């Protein structure tokens, strides 16, 4: 039997009542690009020779101390090689006590987005805790996770993923 359908006038009234769902919705121009110092500092003088870095400068920290440590897959344990880097960071930060610090936690792309945000936070917290254990005052540091959203190495094999599983100590960190 054919069904007799009533005109779907009520449905179209719904559309008419909600013109906005159909109308262009914009936007929210949000001020504030990330300032340069807040960007992941992969470009922050890595290409400079050690001799070019002024002691106590960002370059000095990045080039001579090492601003980042790496993690094993799905882990936030501080590896032995990472401990050495963080020990140097702690010494340097003790010498230059005026820097506020942001510890950024990152994950590689081989995970899901939401979990990786939490994993990056876990790595940042573990890194921060290690620095605290080496005498860096907790109130100099904040942490932030970027999950898998800010890779520095962009190939898709393990050589890149291992570089992206990282915590980066950023001087003059965001918000400070």
């Amino acid at each position: 039997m054919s069904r007799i359908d009533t005109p779907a006038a009520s449905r179209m009234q719904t559309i008419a009542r909600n013109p906005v769902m159909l109308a262009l919705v914009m936007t929210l121009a949000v001020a504030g690009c990330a300032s340069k110092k807040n960007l992941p500092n992969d470009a922050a003088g890595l290409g400079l020779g050690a001799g070019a870095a002024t002691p106590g400068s960002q370059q000095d920290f990045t080039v001579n101390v090492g601003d980042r440590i790496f993690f094993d897959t799905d882990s936030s344990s501080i590896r032995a090689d990472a401990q050495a880097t963080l020990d140097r960071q702690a010494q340097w930060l003790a010498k230059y006590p005026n820097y506020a610090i942001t510890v950024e936690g990152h994950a590689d792309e081989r995970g899901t987005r939401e979990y990786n945000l939490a994993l990056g936070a876990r790595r940042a917290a573990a890194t921060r805790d290690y620095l605290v254990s080496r005498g860096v005052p907790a109130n100099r540091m904040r942490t932030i996770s970027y999950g898998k959203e800010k890779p520095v190495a962009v190939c898709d094999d393990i050589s890149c993923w291992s570089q992206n599983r990282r915590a980066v100590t950023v001087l003059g960190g965001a918000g400070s």
Partner: protein
Amino acid sequence: MWRKNRAHFPHPAQKDERLKGFMEMLRRNFFRLFTLMFAGVLFAAPANAVVEIDINKGNVEPLPIAVTDFLQGELAQKISDVVAADLKRSGLFAPIDKGAFIEKIANPDAAPRFEDWKVINAQALVIGRVTQEGDGRLKAEFRLWDTFAGQQMLGQQFYTQPENWRRVAHIIADAIYERITGEKGYFDTRIVYVAESGPKNARKRQLAIMDQDGFNARALTNSNDIVLTPRFSPNRQEITYMSFENQQPRVYLLQLETGQREVVGNFPGMTFAPRFSPDGQRVIMSLQQEGNANIYTMDLRSRTTTRLTNTAAIDTSPSYSPDGSRVVFESDRGGKQQLYVMGADGSGQTRISFGDGSYSTPVWSPRGDLIAFTKQSGGKFSIGVMKPDGSSERILTTGFHNEGPTWAPNGRVLMFFRQNAGAGGPQLYSIDLTGYNEQLIQTQGFASDPAWSPLME
């Protein structure tokens, strides 16, 4: 007037038999789909064992349908083209090439010459007319005919502003889909997603919204702050999402109508992975504190927050059951990420996923019968579904990286994002619940984190 014409076409009783046969044939087609869907159930091992059914991607025969150019003019034809495209992309219909049509429809109020359509095996026929009213509104009328029974199956008319022409087409396609399949359609829906541009190590992300077929895309944000995981409110008026604005990663609400935004709650840490409750009154999300993430809700009226989980682990990606009584989420409390179900008050947290690998991003089907997820196993990322008790797991697609399923409001189709190995970025795909009919959703640039809107009632 449209309706009155029905009286001109009496339906002799003997034709009922043929219609019955036709409907049976249709039902058989769709029953075959369901048979495949339920194959996972029939052959499942006891609960919590994993059965990966490799669905043979052979043919579920789509129904041959003739969608004629609506009369009269360019816009009318564009509307019928969108109707045909919707039906085709569903995988359940096969619109017949217009070049094969014999009868040229001149009067959409008259009965078609059924013989002309039967001979090209058009089992259903869509005829329509679009006219402009005196006040400028469009009037769109269509009829759906059963050619073998010689019966009208559906006749409807709609009024709208001309700029909404695509929407009218989607509504017509939904009506046809529902009439023939017996299930609600999903064409008059939208997708919010993250539009991505630029190189991988300097990617710009904006929230964007588009129709489910990829048209009418536009940006909802424009800043250099990372924005992620947009999700619709049940009334489609709001989006909840996560933004790194001011270097403070937090959950926000965005009113689509006004563009107004606000932070959800005042939490002492990163909030992320937000979704609305089915009644729209709460946002459920994760709060990160130190190395742990736990699940909270915030009531949007009273602003009160409630903690649902309390573990030294990562509990995230919460998603309500459609009746709001339960929540599925992922947790690595047992080591790897696995799926858990709890009461909406946090009670009775029970692990449901026990397969190889890890499970994440669970999303409860709008029908309530299934939970979709991302699965990582053997270096591959898959999209799959399981029942809420963890049984009857089925993988729909597997590859280098598939992530983040979202359900069409009828619970039959899923969308997700895929990143292939190599250069490039993520793109959106849809796939039928059976594992058939995978389709790329065309977007201007890269796209991720799709979230399907509810159907407007």
